[in-house]
């Protein structure tokens, strides 16, 4: 307890810096994955993507990031076990942020696709199980999180399979795909709008002081989704059925309609990513803040202070502005193998899956959900060729990340423990 009173502010500042560093890393690296589909399909230019990401990552983090944050903050570790030594939780969370942040940096440098979610969960479980004690970890919760990592790509893949199959039936294989696209694409916009606003209304607006019941949320979401799809339909009016160049690729009328749809799904994707991944940075930070501010009381019932969400959200945006746009630039110059009619299906499926996971408080990996979604489109015969070697590498880096994150955080944990006592 004395340690927390003596060094409380120093630890708080270190925690904030580390949390910001982690958020910056997410913005610098992970956002490029979330937005890459749209940039790669030439639906958005680099600058449009950065703009969309800034606005919607921030909105997602701020409005719907609370549930996952609370999972990471207090549901992985059974804090009641360490009531006598609350400083250990603070050291551990700082160590986890540092471990995950540094691992993210190293992996980014070598170009390995790692997941921020997996590194932070690995780090937290690592320091808790080894540094404090095996029983501190809520293994049941950890088990359900790990299960969600397997389930989420499968769910996203199933949704994207169904989405693309419906696109084939309703639009691509009709006698006049262009007119069919104009007729049906607003429905997909509706879907994107509905999922995002539903999660926001149900989970996101509590800390802004607005509480909605389930039926109110549904009603409002329907209204919002309707407005979004009408707005989208209005934009589609301006598309004519000619082949035009867009951001360096030639698109016919149908694909140009899907490119508009992809702007909508890109917003949903950025929102979803913000809502789920911001927690990787601020979940541990929230735990630090609540322990330090309550003077050592761990089982605090206090709600998440909004300024913490702000740190995470702005960290992501600054990471995006300083380095993330460069990663996106390389995506934008690569050869397009994912046209908007395919890209949107993958993106919408992934965004829907991630945003629902955010609502239920499950920290999942956006990138792996997207990988699952792309495979789903492939299964619907929408993509010519998918390199399974690369998919294997992604899965491997997912597995490797867990012990590495754990090892690093154990290291930092004992270093901090040695330094502060």
């Amino acid at each position, binding site marked *: 307890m004395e340690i927390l009173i003596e060094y409380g502010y120093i630890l708080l500042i270190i925690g904030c810096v580390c949390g910001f560093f982690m958020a910056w890393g997410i913005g610098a690296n992970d956002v490029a994955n979330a937005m890459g589909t749209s940039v790669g399909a030439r639906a958005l230019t680099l600058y449009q993507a950065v703009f969309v990401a800034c606005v919607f990552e921030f909105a997602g983090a701020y409005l719907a990031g609370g549930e996952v944050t609370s999972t990471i903050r207090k549901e992985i570790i059974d804090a009641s076990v360490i009531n006598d030594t609350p400083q250990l939780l603070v050291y551990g969370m700082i160590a986890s942020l540092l471990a995950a942040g540094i691992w993210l940096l190293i992996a980014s440098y070598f*170009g390995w696709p790692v997941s921020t979610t997996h590194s932070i969960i690995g780090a937290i479980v690592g320091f808790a199980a080894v540094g404090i004690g095996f029983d501190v970890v809520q293994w049941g919760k950890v088990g359900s999180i790990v299960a969600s990592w397997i389930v989420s790509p499968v769910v996203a893949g199933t949704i994207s399979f169904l989405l693309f199959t419906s696109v084939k039936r309703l639009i691509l294989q009709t006698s006049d795909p262009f007119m069919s696209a104009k007729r049906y694409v607003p429905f997909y916009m509706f879907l994107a709008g509905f999922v995002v606003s539903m999660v926001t209304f149900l989970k996101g607006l509590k800390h802004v002081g607005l509480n909605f019941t389930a039926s109110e949320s549904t009603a409002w979401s329907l209204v919002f989704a309707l407005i979004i799809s009408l707005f989208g339909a209005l934009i589609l009016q301006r598309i004519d059925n000619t082949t035009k160049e867009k951001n360096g690729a030639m698109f016919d009328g149908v694909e140009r309609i899907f490119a508009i749809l992809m702007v909508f799904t890109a917003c949903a994707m950025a929102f979803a990513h913000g809502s789920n991944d911001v927690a990787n940075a601020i979940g541990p930070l929230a735990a630090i803040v609540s322990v330090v501010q309550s003077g050592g009381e761990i089982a605090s019932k206090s709600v998440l202070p909004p300024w913490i969400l702000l740190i995470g959200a702005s960290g992501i945006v600054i990471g995006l502005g300083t380095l993330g746009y460069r990663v996106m630039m390389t995506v934008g110059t690569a050869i397009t193998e994912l046209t908007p009619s395919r890209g949107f299906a993958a993106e919408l499926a992934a965004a829907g899956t991630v945003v629902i996971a955010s609502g239920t408080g499950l920290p999942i990996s956006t990138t792996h959900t997207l990988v699952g979604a792309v495979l789903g489109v492939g299964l619907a015969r929408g993509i010519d*060729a*998918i390199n399974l070697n690369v998919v294997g590498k992604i899965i491997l880096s997912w597995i490797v990340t867990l012990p590495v994150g754990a090892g690093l955080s154990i290291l930092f944990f004992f270093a901090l423990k040695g330094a502060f006592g």
Partner: protein
Amino acid sequence: MSTDTFLGMLAESPFSGLQEHMGVGNKATEALERFIQAAAASDWKTASECREEIVGLENQADDIKNNIRNNLPKSLFMSVSRQDLLDLVFTMDGIPNAAKDISGVMIGRKMEIPKEIIKSFIDCSNAAIKAANQASDAIRKVDGMQKRGFSSSDVAALSELVTKLEQIEKENDEFEIALRNKFFKFEKEYDPVDVMFFYDVINKIGSLADISQTVGHLLVRLVSK
């Protein structure tokens, strides 16, 4: 920082190579048509120009074929079967090969087509070239089918094209039989070695039509699932 995103999992599409190969094969049969016209008129200067063109195109087709094969590792997950695609490309490659073989024998021997059968000979070779063009048309259609994500109606449309292809091949067969019958009547007036090679060319023309027909069948197999 990283340049790898998960989009690295999207491999280069093999279909652009397929179209490219088809385009080259089409040019080769076009050149063959001009070659035969020139050879029939004993215009060996034009014929050798066409022959040069065919040889160049055949090399080009080989490069494209090898390129497709080299870029199709077993670890690819594709919208079509890898085996079907490779079978198709290797069969397609027979079209420029046949053009090269036919023009090779004819120019090597400065083959004079017996004047009694010039018309039948040109009819027969035109039917074979028509079959090759029909096969190219069918391959061209795959581009759109791939954009639409392949459907049962695509398979039906393709089957229709292949039925036409079969008819053309049959036509070629009939022309070939007629040609053989005609030539049989006065083959003894010609030098036996020349006659032997003349029959060889007729066989090669027949196989051009056969290959084109096989391309059509393989294409249906490729698209249907």
